[in-house]
């Protein structure tokens, strides 16, 4: 087994890994390595051939591969090492990474800092317990997307989409372009989990019906899918008797959520946030394992890649500082909680601030859709900061910068979202990209 040493080793070469590597190198880490399982860099972006990436980061509309290549070119222009076709098998505390590849065999890397950037995986049929038979023709939307966009094969002719996540919406449009008939999208919740722009551009523009508050209660077919049974659900998500109807189809695509890919972290004893499914991190994106950082979809699921790149840059910079011994554990960590109206907040805790730091950026997911709202920051039980939001949707991440002086040295930090007393026209600070 060959051994190597690096200052910063990054697991995963998607947008998070690429941005983390660049930031680490720019922040002065001498030896930076990206380990990527696939045979090319870019992660999930390589299969997202549609437009809509980079509006924030590059102020233009790129395809997924287009966005990825901006970063890949930047990485190639540096002396960052990239190992492709290399799967990380274990990353143990202390920075010992074991990986395997067909060309280099089993390899051990000793790194001063490690960045997790493994992305996420799709939830499956088993996770949502859809009864029925187990014929061919049931795919997760992302797997189908890869097959269509990268291999050129189609998963079926008559498609029903379960769940209204973005990948499902994008695939509804793709399958229509390919000549398949997309019969409907069924979403169990009373609201969609996809970005508004995707509902408009991928469904409405093609006349594909979106049924909210409907659950697919069975999948039928012996060899190949022959159809599904659908029912309306009540506000407790229970099936309403007598509302069942059948839809014929030969293909079911599932778009029912993404889960951070944390197998490596779990094996290493990483402290996880049960709601995001990712690590618990501080503002440096450092996890509960000293010297291990996390960014991108492995930390929490993002809808926009621009935020992934930004978050990963923070992790990369911090990893470089840690490798130089500059980011010492601060001792006291304060936890940050997602209160009323919110499901998640990242970072989940704060370490001591760097000197000169003016603000900390937080990312949130709302618990339910709301109209005009107020995002509130409570420090030690007192309202310390408030921001107006024009509209709140669980599918769209809320991002807010909180001035360090508002945080002070309060011991308990909590965020809430409440309905705004009056209508809000413009949003302050960050524009939401819908």
């Amino acid at each position: 087994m060959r051994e190597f040493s690096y200052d910063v080793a990054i697991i995963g070469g998607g947008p998070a890994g690429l941005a983390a590597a660049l930031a680490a190198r720019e922040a002065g880490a001498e030896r930076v390595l990206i380990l990527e399982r696939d045979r090319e860099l870019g992660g999930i972006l390589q299969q997202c051939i549609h437009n809509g990436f980079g509006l924030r980061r590059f102020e233009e509309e790129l395809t997924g591969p287009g966005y990825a290549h901006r970063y890949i070119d930047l990485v190639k222009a540096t002396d960052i090492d990239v190992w492709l076709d290399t799967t990380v098998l274990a990353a143990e505390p202390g920075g010992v990474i074991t990986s395997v590849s067909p060309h280099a065999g089993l390899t051990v890397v000793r790194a001063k800092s490690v960045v997790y950037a493994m992305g996420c995986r799709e939830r499956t049929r088993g996770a949502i317990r859809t009864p029925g038979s187990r014929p061919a023709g049931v795919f997760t939307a992302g797997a189908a997307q890869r097959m269509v966009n990268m291999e050129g094969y189609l998963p079926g002719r008559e498609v029903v989409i379960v769940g209204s996540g973005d990948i499902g919406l994008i695939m509804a449009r793709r399958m229509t372009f390919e000549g398949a008939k997309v019969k409907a999208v069924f979403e169990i919740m009373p609201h969609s989990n996809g970005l508004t722009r995707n509902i408009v551009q991928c469904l409405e523009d093609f006349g594909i019906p979106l049924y909210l508050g409907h659950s697919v209660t069975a999948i039928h077919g012996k060899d190949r899918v022959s159809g599904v049974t659908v029912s309306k659900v009540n506000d407790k998500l229970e099936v309403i008797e007598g509302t069942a109807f059948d839809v014929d189809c030969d293909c079911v695509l599932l778009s029912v959520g993404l889960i951070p890919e944390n197998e490596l972290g779990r094996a290493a004893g990483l402290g996880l946030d049960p709601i995001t499914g990712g690590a618990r991190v501080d503002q440096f994106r450092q996890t509960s394992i000293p010297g291990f950082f996390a960014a991108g979809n492995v930390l929490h699921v993002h809808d926009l890649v621009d935020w992934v790149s930004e978050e990963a840059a923070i992790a990369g910079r911090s990893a470089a500082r840690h490798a130089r011994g500059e980011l010492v554990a601060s001792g006291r960590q304060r936890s940050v909680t997602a209160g009323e109206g919110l499901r998640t907040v990242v970072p989940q805790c704060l370490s001591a601030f760097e000197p000169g730091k003016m603000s900390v950026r937080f990312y949130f997911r709302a618990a339910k859709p709301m109209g005009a709202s107020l995002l509130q920051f409570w420090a030690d039980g007192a309202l310390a900061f408030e921001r107006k939001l024009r509209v709140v949707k669980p599918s769209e991440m809320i991002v807010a910068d909180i001035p360090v002086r508002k945080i002070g040295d309060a011991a308990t930090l909590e965020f809430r979202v409440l309905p705004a007393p009056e209508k809000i026209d413009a949003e302050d600070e960050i524009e939401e990209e819908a």
Partner: protein
Amino acid sequence: MTGSFGAGPLPPSADVVVIGGGVVGCAIARELSRFDLSVVLIERSPDVATGTSKANSGILHAGFDAEPGTWKARLNVRGAALYAELAEGLGIPRKATGALVVAKDATQMETVAELRHRGIDNGVAGLEIWNRDQVVAHEPNISPDVAGALWAPSGAVVCPFLATVGFAENAIRNGAHIVTECAVIGLDVADRQIVAVRTTRGRLATRFVVNAAGLHSGEVARLAGDDSFTITPRRGEYILFDRSVGQLVNTVLFPTPDKVSKGILVSPTVHGNVFIGPDAIDIDDPDDKETTAGGLAGIIAGARRIVPALPLGTAITEFAGLRAAAGKDFVIGPSLAARGLVHAAGIQSPGLTSAPAIGEVIVEMLQDVGLRLKRKAGFVPVNPEKPRFHEVDRMTQAELVATDPLFGRVICRCETITEAEIVAAIQSPCGARTVDGVKRRVRAGAGRCQGGFCGPRVTAILARELGIPVTAVRKDSADSWLFLSRAELEAGEGAHA
């Protein structure tokens, strides 16, 4: 001397024909392959282990359930002992977990005491009655209202797919031919003696036929004019949980049984998952393996009575299996309607456990009805070991990649299955032909993402190794195509219809 596997041509004749490539048929074929005989096994699906043998509890029952004197009682205990001997050599994963029959009150304690006596009559070793504290110490997650249990140390878990494949592969290595995608549609009888088997792919002359057609064994019997039994499909549904909750239970946990079935159990699998199920519902259609919302809710409620804190959020799949019920006992023995036809039919639970013992008695019965047996000199009782990358230590992993670089490419990330293992599963004498066939052999796609990630990759490897287009790769059954080309989509209904 190796036999063959696949949808190739049907030989014109055989000494013995076995109908059905479930665990029973494959164990019989393997037992027959010890002798100087031409053996042909006919299976209607593209693979073995696609019927009841693929969807069951995977338990090697200790043998205390069956009524003394029945086939079930006799063959269960013998079968369990044979697995202990054979499993390793045939590449069949088996884990000696032991089993507990959990009692909740005094009446149930009486029932488990009776079970203990019955087990002793059946020849089951080591049975003990445990008190509450012993049970809780062994199973910390068990329901607090447990009163005690029957402890059966010889209960074990096994991989039902690899059991079937292990027997089949060994039979092939010893000269048997397994012809797939071929259904038996007639039995020719002359003078009350079997003379040939008619199939969807032609006629095969033979004087000896074993009926191991599972749910269809009643129909097969009737092809020879034998209507001595009928099969009722009895469905059982399951929920399988991720390996991350594998520590939930250490042993197979049965409730105290009632009249109909062994009840809803909570059990570890040999691969470190946990499952709950099965229920028992009589149905009409022997091919209907749909799970139902009511059934799943019922097994959740049942399992909660044993382990209240079920990790439902970690469910990775649900499935149903069909028992081939033909009354209380197995239907084992020569047909009275046609000489040369021997039934291994109506093999419900504990059929998986009993399979190697069924093989032994069927061979004896064939001899009784006139088959001449001569032991073969070169019989090889074991299959070569297939390395499992994720189960060996780092040094061995490094050696594996050094011998074959494809051990360095992880295809299934949930179970850490490498390309080399998948290629080996396809190129083996009883090689996978379908995506589910790969999954059953090496567990690529059996993890928490259920093939979401590796499915397309496994499809591509199958196409490459079998030399067929991606559009010809199937999920499991003969018509379960997975992908269309753009041209096929444009051509409309014709292709793949």
